[in-house]
């Protein structure tokens, strides 16, 4: 009985993990069709920002929840102004440019922080669940992810900003004819996407530890989740695929080991994309956000 609760909590955690690291990518890819191969590095930057703030004596919660998204959002803004804006509509060029960017960011972080693993302390102690000892911080991640997605949904659904973003996403021409410059919308969207990635990185740092190269570990999972989720509906698509992949990979991990968990997740993604080339949301969730 306890064990079932442990498994369910671990599944919830895995779903949250995927949803959290995918959020920034979902916004950028889903809304702008920009494939940002530096997404993982944005997450990593969020982690290192938290580390730097924590070393400077700033409160850990404030560092990860506020400073990390702001710093990485600013980095995103600079990147958009200097690189991405010249490449809209040129998918392959964007991929190449952002890949180069990811190498650059890894290099810079290595120069500043060194290439060995570093550690942000976990602020929440473990707790007892029946006979099992559990990581308390996992619960926090689950809660934060739920709050984040509710927040994203509220913004897209009920605010002027969300309306403009959805409009520009559906038809950039119509939005532009109504007086909204799509370029400005894209700039804001990319910045927000980067900030979300930084947020994820900051929140996950105490759990995974940090390496300059650790962005690579996030990018595969988030791309699979976002692409399988489909670009028809940013939030519901990404959430659906996170639930699907998180559940299945974690169940397989429990039954055998993490290697098979990853393999099953990849195999499932291939099958799903074969059956639903436009992603889950393109098939089922066409009218949601």
């Amino acid at each position, binding site marked *: 009985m306890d064990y079932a609760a442990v498994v369910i909590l*671990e599944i919830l955690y895995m779903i949250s993990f995927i949803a959290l690291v995918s959020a920034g990518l979902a916004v950028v890819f889903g809304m702008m069709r920009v494939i940002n191969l530096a997404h993982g590095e944005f997450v990593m930057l969020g982690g290192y920002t938290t580390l730097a703030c924590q070393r400077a004596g700033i409160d850990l919660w404030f560092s990860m929840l506020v400073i990390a998204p702001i710093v990485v959002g600013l980095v995103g803004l600079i990147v958009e102004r200097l690189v991405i804006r010249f490449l809209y509509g040129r998918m392959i060029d964007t991929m190449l440019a952002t890949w180069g960017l990811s190498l650059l960011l890894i290099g810079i972080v290595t120069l500043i922080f060194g*290439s060995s693993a570093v550690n942000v302390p976990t602020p929440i102690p473990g707790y007892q669940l029946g006979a099992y*000892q559990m990581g*308390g911080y996992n619960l926090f991640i689950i809660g934060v992810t739920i709050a984040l997605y509710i927040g994203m949904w509220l913004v897209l659904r009920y605010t002027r900003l969300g309306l403009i973003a959805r409009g520009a996403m559906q038809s950039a021409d119509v939005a532009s004819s109504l007086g909204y410059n799509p370029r400005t919308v894209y700039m804001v969207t990319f910045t927000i996407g980067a900030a979300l990635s930084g947020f994820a990185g900051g929140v996950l740092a105490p759990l995974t*530890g940090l390496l300059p190269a650790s962005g690579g570990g996030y990018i595969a999972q988030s791309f699979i989740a976002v692409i399988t989720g489909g670009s028809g509906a940013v939030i519901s698509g990404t959430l659906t695929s996170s639930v699907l992949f998180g559940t299945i990979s*974690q169940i397989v991990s429990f039954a055998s080991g*993490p290697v098979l968990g990853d393999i099953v997740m990849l195999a499932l993604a291939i099958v799903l994309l074969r059956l639903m080339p436009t992603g889950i949301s393109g098939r089922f969730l066409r009218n949601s956000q």
Partner: protein
Amino acid sequence: MRVSRRDFLGATGALAVTGSLGAVSAFAQGKDILLGSVLDNSGNLDIYGKPMVMATTLAVEELNAAGGLLGRKIKAIQYDTQSDIALYTKFAQQLARTDKVDVVHGGITSASREAIRQTFKRANTLYFYNVLYEGGVCDRNCVVTGTTPAQAVEPIVDYAMKKWGNKVVVLAADYNYGQITAKWLQYYIKERKGTVASTDFFPLDVADFGSTIAKIQQANPNFVVAALVGGAHMAFFRQWAASGMNKKIPLTSTTFGVGNEHLALSPAEGDGIVIAGNYSQEAQSPANLEFLARWKKRFGDTKIVHEIAVSQYQGIYAWAAAVKKAGSLEREAMLKAVESGISIEGPAGTVTIDPKTHHAALDIHLMEVKNQKLTIINTVKQRPPADTAQYCDLIKNPNDNKQYEVKI
């Protein structure tokens, strides 16, 4: 006669050089002895490689300052393999074929060692591998000065089973080091009538151990052995502590501390982890204190000194002892010298090369992480590489070229 500026500088420069070399003119007798190294001085594995490169520099400089070997100066040719296995093969070829070095000291992961070992064997370039590993390499061209499972794994199993009980969970990195070490663990645990409740392997990029930690609790072992490798796997130790497991089930490791991992974890997270190995910075022996003082003088920071940097340093001194004994760099003479049971005193104690296996008998410390330090619990002097010795006899079978694994 018109003297150009270049001629003038050349002539005076040469004068200056000969003048300054006057004191060490003994070196003039032959060309330099070439010592090659292939190590990861950058990239993912540089936490292991950088101090090894520094140790190589230090050892060569010290040997030269003491008059070199055979009246000749040693020149180190060090290549940075950038944590890229493809570069190992490339630079190994270069060392063996182009630079034609007299000896190579290098390789960090077991994957990298196996990528280059045969290259040196074919080229008849003597090869020293100075890193702890899974044991069993039986190759007359290769000398190993790092620890093997019989030296650094068996003491952990022995201590932990006596102290905590006989049900064990094994976690290991998913490549040849982890796979073979897991087999040895199973062998030593079974030998002591223990049981391995489960063995799990993790690719080097796995950083989420939530399901693993839950599964360990379900198995409820008396203790856990982690043969995990690299930066991503560090997450295990962190998540283990974050869930409070470090207070419930004792944790031991065959690799922890080798890359100074104890400095990356907070005292609360790292305290109590039991490890075994050849070196602790805390050892108060005069040899170690003097070594650290020399390191400090040359490089400044001694915090980064770890076991395999010391192994590399000792490996170079063991090779130097063999060169002195052989009186030549000629291959057969060198191998005979290696097989004469040479012994040196290094920072981590006596290193004696076993003629049969080309492995080293080493002083082994059982240690516990306390407040970010590797505190010594007890020390066994001159523990032999008994695992490899079960299978390997290079005196009888000089042409053997195999890595033996334990059969369970």
